[in-house]
């Protein structure tokens, strides 16, 4: 059995433990084809299958084999090969197949629970109302049980960080005046796909004075531009993110000072990434530091969004590094820590790394230290 399969089996057993605690006999864990890098896909996490269609679900009984349903029907072969589960059915009508599956296994009269159904299609919701009305929503318990990422998920995260760094290295290699933002993004994306990323959330933009990072446009790079790159590849569905800033030409003092401030904010945040620290305390440490430098009004929207977040596909805990979170950090949690924000002197900067909470504190998973990179113009001669 591969590490991947072992991890999958262990996830099933973990969830079965949660089911026992809640007197649940069968869990229906759903996945939305609208897979989101800041969303949990319970079905994918428990089945190992990136489903192509709108809906998917894995039914996990306390006794017996789990059963995976994916859409569309023509994806049966790939789904079967990809999953660590033995029983896989591909269908074009998951809502109808759900009822048939429950009947076939004799599960329709069991104590059912659901997880991850919020983003299912309307047809699946209607079917659930028929076959599992009033079923317990086990998603909060699933998030809690899976908040500490397993070894396989962390392996994927580490590889995704390596790929993100390779993508950024490619950006530094090819960024030059005259290249359009979208051309740069296409090259970075291609590099990461070639390195094994199975998907990627990528924002690359540039400006002499950025207001925020955004999707790539036709804008051509120019001397003095600050390039912002939010690079988030996934490996086997598990996303990781790095946030980088680079100047074409020499960075001036304003730019260096602003980035240094955010770099220091990151280090303060990283020092706060300890088991037992609450997420509001972590976000507060960063915001307090930035405020003490005279930028208190810039520690809220529209000048920033959050101080980081975890990413799919596994349980999204903590969802946001903000003062609204109710999460306490624990070993095995991983998220991007990014004090990204706008500063009036030089604009918006990205400055962040994927962080793993260990027993000894926070560990940044990137190799290079955060720096405001410069792209020397001599390279364009």
């Amino acid at each position: 059995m591969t590490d991947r399969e072992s991890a999958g089996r262990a996830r099933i057993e973990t969830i079965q433990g949660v089911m026992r605690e809640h007197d649940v006999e069968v869990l229906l864990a759903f996945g939305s084809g609208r897979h989101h890098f800041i969303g949990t896909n319970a079905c994918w996490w428990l089945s190992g299958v990136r489903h192509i269609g709108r809906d998917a679900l894995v039914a996990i009984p306390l006794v017996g084999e789990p059963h995976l349903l994916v859409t569309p029907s023509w994806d049966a072969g790939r789904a079967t090969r990809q999953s660590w589960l033995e029983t896989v059915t591909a269908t074009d009508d998951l809502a109808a197949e759900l009822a048939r599956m429950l009947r076939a296994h004799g599960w329709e009269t069991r104590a059912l629970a659901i997880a991850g159904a919020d983003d299912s299609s309307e047809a699946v919701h209607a079917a659930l109302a028929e076959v599992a009305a009033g079923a317990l929503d086990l998603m909060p318990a699933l998030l809690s049980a899976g908040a500490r990422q397993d070894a396989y998920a962390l392996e994927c995260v580490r590889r995704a960080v390596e790929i993100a760094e390779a993508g950024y290295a490619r950006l530094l290699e090819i960024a030059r005046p005259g290249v359009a933002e979208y051309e740069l993004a296409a090259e970075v994306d291609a590099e990461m796909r070639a390195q094994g990323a199975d998907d990627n959330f990528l924002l690359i933009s540039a400006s002499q004075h950025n207001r925020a990072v955004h999707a790539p446009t036709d804008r051509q790079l120019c001397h003095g531009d600050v390039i912002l790159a939010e690079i988030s590849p996934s490996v086997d569905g598990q996303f990781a993110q790095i946030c980088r800033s680079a100047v074409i030409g020499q960075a001036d003092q304003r730019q260096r000072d602003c980035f240094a401030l955010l770099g220091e904010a990151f280090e303060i945040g990283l020092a706060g990434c300890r088991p037992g620290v609450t997420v509001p305390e972590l976000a507060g440490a960063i915001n307090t530091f930035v405020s003490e430098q005279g930028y208190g009004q810039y520690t809220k929207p529209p000048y920033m969004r959050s101080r980081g977040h975890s990413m799919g596909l596994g349980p999204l805990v903590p969802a946001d590094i903000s003062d609204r979170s109710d999460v306490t950090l624990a070993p095995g949690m991983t998220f991007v820590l990014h004090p990204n924000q706008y500063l009036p002197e030089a604009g918006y900067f990205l400055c962040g790394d994927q962080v793993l909470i260990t027993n000894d504190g926070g560990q940044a998973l990137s190799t290079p230290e955060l720096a405001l990179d410069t792209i020397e113009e001599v390279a364009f001669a």
Partner: protein
Amino acid sequence: MITMTNVLKRGRTVWDRALLPEDEYVERRRVLREAMTGAGIDVLVSLGHATRPGNFAYLSGYVPPLGWMGTVLGSEQGPMLVSGGGSREVPFVRTQTWIEDLRTSRSLFSGPAEVVGAAVAEIAAPGARVGVAGAHDALNAATRAELSQALSRYEVVEADELTEAVRAVKRPREVVALRQSADIARAAVAVAVDRFQEGATAAEAVLAAEHAARSAGCRDVRVLGDLGNGELAPVQALSPDRGERFAVYCAVERLGYWGQAAAGTADSAAALAALEAMRDAAAAGTAAADMAAAAIAALPDSAVDRTLAYGFGGGIGLDPSERPEVAVGACAVIAPGTVLALQAIVPEDGGLGCAAETVLVTERGVTPL
């Protein structure tokens, strides 16, 4: 069209004012208002999702990068653009749309109830008739319920059929945009086939198509290939697999408009015959089911089930799959001005035979794009 919804957008995001100038959207507003008047609707709320943005993108010209966005259009007021993102994104969104009145929800994770409810309240008195389009696709059950509650003082009616009817007949500039997207998709599959024939693995060939499409200015790119198992699949990991033959399917979105193409290293007489049969059967007033029947009649019996599973395609536009679907039992009759993305993906010789074409339906037949 074969859709693969779990793809994050990461490519070129622009408002091309040369191809889609503001007056194009002023006209769309007029057309929508005429339809609203015909349906007795005072306010039209059009919601779109990043994976199915059409109802929103038609009037706004923008595609939500994540989650939902919407427009609110009164009989004389608006449109307003309501966003499921925070205020940080507003300066960029302003560069992407002609709509000046932008409203944001409280956070990236908020539903539309509060911001849509407030926008509607500004332009309609209680009891007004409010049409809502796109909610079934754009919102989950919980946020749909919240929206219903927020609009409870109004007479709320479904407006999906209204917007679908308007959007089904493509405007001249839409046809140009669709042709450009189809061109890019065709070029991308040609790159993949060439790479495979030069000795690349199937996965490398698929990735080459992705790269070509993104470099050509596409925002969303979905490429599936026969990676050696006689089926279409996305590339999830690098693999040295290389079968005897190769087939590739590509869907791209550029400037909001989708294009598709498919090809393989071996010509497929069956796939081409099915495609030709659909093309010959297509004309304004034709039933979509009759087109599907014509395609089935052109296929070997042994290939019908799997070809049907991949589908014969259907309408294409601001959404990758629009009505009508060319399928057995489809009730739709094809309207003139509809653009259809037709496909036949046929199992044969252990691999797949592929043929695809995008056509504009006219009174007399079809015109290839």
